[in-house]
């Protein structure tokens, strides 16, 4: 008797649960569908012949496929140059950030020197400063130092950000002291401890930070926009936008194709290295 009533009342939540599960699936996959449409549109448009690009009824599926936009983009614009510039700039910035941030993170966590707590406090405090308010003074400094139209005019403001230092400090704190003590007793110098013990141990944190900085620099818009003022120096994001303005009549086919070219390398890297990137983003959410 008592088991029967129990079963009766239990059957309700089970159905409710099933209904809820169906609702969750519908909502999640519905949202995923909405998220995918813009990608689909971008890729589809890049292969559409002109009359379908301009047609009043949108063609979600191109009935003819053309590579005309890719041909025009590769041979009639500077997009190859812009891609090389972007790769170069992102690589330099990543190397500089990993180097200087890991050095200071090592110094702040493993070495004792006067003022180090104050320095760390100021770096933490600088998180509150929105980058944008420095737009004008950094431009003044860059032009005084002759860094306008130089890659360093972009690299240095980006490398000044506190995020990487803060992320690495969290990791360096967790390395056991014993390893370093043992190495020191063996007569290792600080530099050698840093390069032979600390850095190898931090490989995965450095990889996550490096990937994050690379993508961040690749995508950065504001600094390249004000610092790089010659079209031969543009990065992809800047070049793309000028393409929209300078082709006279804006060709949606060209613009969408350029968007495909600018985002493909990162989307591929994203699919392969997603877990590193998730880690880099999570580090930001948990460290602040």
């Amino acid at each position: 008797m008592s088991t029967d009533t129990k079963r009766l009342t239990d059957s309700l939540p089970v159905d409710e649960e099933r209904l809820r599960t169906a609702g969750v699936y519908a909502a999640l996959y519905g949202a995923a569908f909405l998220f995918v449409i813009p990608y689909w549109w971008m890729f589809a448009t890049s292969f559409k012949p002109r009359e379908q690009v301009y047609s009043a009824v949108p063609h979600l599926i191109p009935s003819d496929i053309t590579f005309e936009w890719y041909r025009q983009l590769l041979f009639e614009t500077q997009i190859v140059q812009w891609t090389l510039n972007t790769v170069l700039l992102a690589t330099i910035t990543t190397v500089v950030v990993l180097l200087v941030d890991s050095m200071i993170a090592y110094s702040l966590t493993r070495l004792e020197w006067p003022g180090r707590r104050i320095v760390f406090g100021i770096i933490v405090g600088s998180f509150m400063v929105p980058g944008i308010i420095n737009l004008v003074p950094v431009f003044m400094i860059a032009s005084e130092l002759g860094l306008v139209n130089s890659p360093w005019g972009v690299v240095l403001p980006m490398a000044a950000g506190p995020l990487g230092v803060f992320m690495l400090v969290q990791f360096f704190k967790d390395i056991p002291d014993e390893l370093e003590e043992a190495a020191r007793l063996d007569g290792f110098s600080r530099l050698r401890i840093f390069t032979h013990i600390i850095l190898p141990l931090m490989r995965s944190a450095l990889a996550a930070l490096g990937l994050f900085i690379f993508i961040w620099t690749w995508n950065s818009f504001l600094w390249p926009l004000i610092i790089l003022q010659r079209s031969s120096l543009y990065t992809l994001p800047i070049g793309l936008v000028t393409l929209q303005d300078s082709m006279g009549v804006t060709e949606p086919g060209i613009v969408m194709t350029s968007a495909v070219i600018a985002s493909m390398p990162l989307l591929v890297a994203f699919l392969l290295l997603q877990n590193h990137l998730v880690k880099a983003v999570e580090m930001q959410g948990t460290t602040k």
Partner: protein
Amino acid sequence: MDRESDGGFLGIDLSVRSTREWIAGVAFAAPYVLIAAGFLFGPLLLGLYMSFFDWNPIVPGQSEFIGLENYRTLLSDPRFWEALKNTVYFVVLTVPAIVVGSLLLALGVNRDVKGQWLLRTIFFSPYVLTVAVIGLLWNDLFSSSGLIPYYVGMITGNSGSWLNSHTLAMPAIAIATVWWTIAFNFVILLAARQNVPERLYEAAKLDGASSWRMMRDVTIPQMKNPMIFVVITTFVSSFQVFGQPYIMTNGGPGSSTTTIVMYLYTSAFASREFGYAAAIGYVLFMILVAVSAFNFYYLGGDD
């Protein structure tokens, strides 16, 4: 790593080993400190200094000190108030949608659903796109030959471009921004949800708590700090919106999508009023500090 040796009155240890440690410590810190001094902290002070001048961009030495005049002009500048109003409108459109959207997606993906990896990949992927691609792509989607006006027009009867419309241009920019920035917040909240200990839910279940009560009494309080982080950073970045309106509308039609940062940018690089632009930057900074502090205390952050 607290000080091990007794360093006397000033806490400074003068033994040979510690002196070498100092030198090493300072040497390792120096490269970043120099870069940050030149391109982060120095500019912060220079910007404040510039905001008190009628800055001469060609010969900075001939700039004229005008005290608080830039700030006074700003307060009576209708274009500034218009830009502030537009920015606040953008913030109102985007922040709730981004915070609630990324929370719902994170809680949904965290459930035991099929295709979890695929869903996470899709929702996270816009994160790797540059604002230039976001702007150009959504520019096309909202244009008169684009997808959205066509299908929305079937219902409303108006299939014109959203970006040429005074009422629809800002919502269009907001939609593009939500699509782009849910990603980052989604990943943070997904990690936060996964860090809530499962035993709390088991205990709540034993107590017969409904799923709504578990949400209210376990999930939300346990995710409080990441939520505060998401709210504050979303506010701060929405207030600084620049690339999307710059690319999609260039501030128009009229000045209906000119945001504060766009106004700052044009003041500096089109009108060459660098002192004035620096003052706009500082006012924006103060607004952001106030908004962040308000959020922090109102939401009850504790670390």
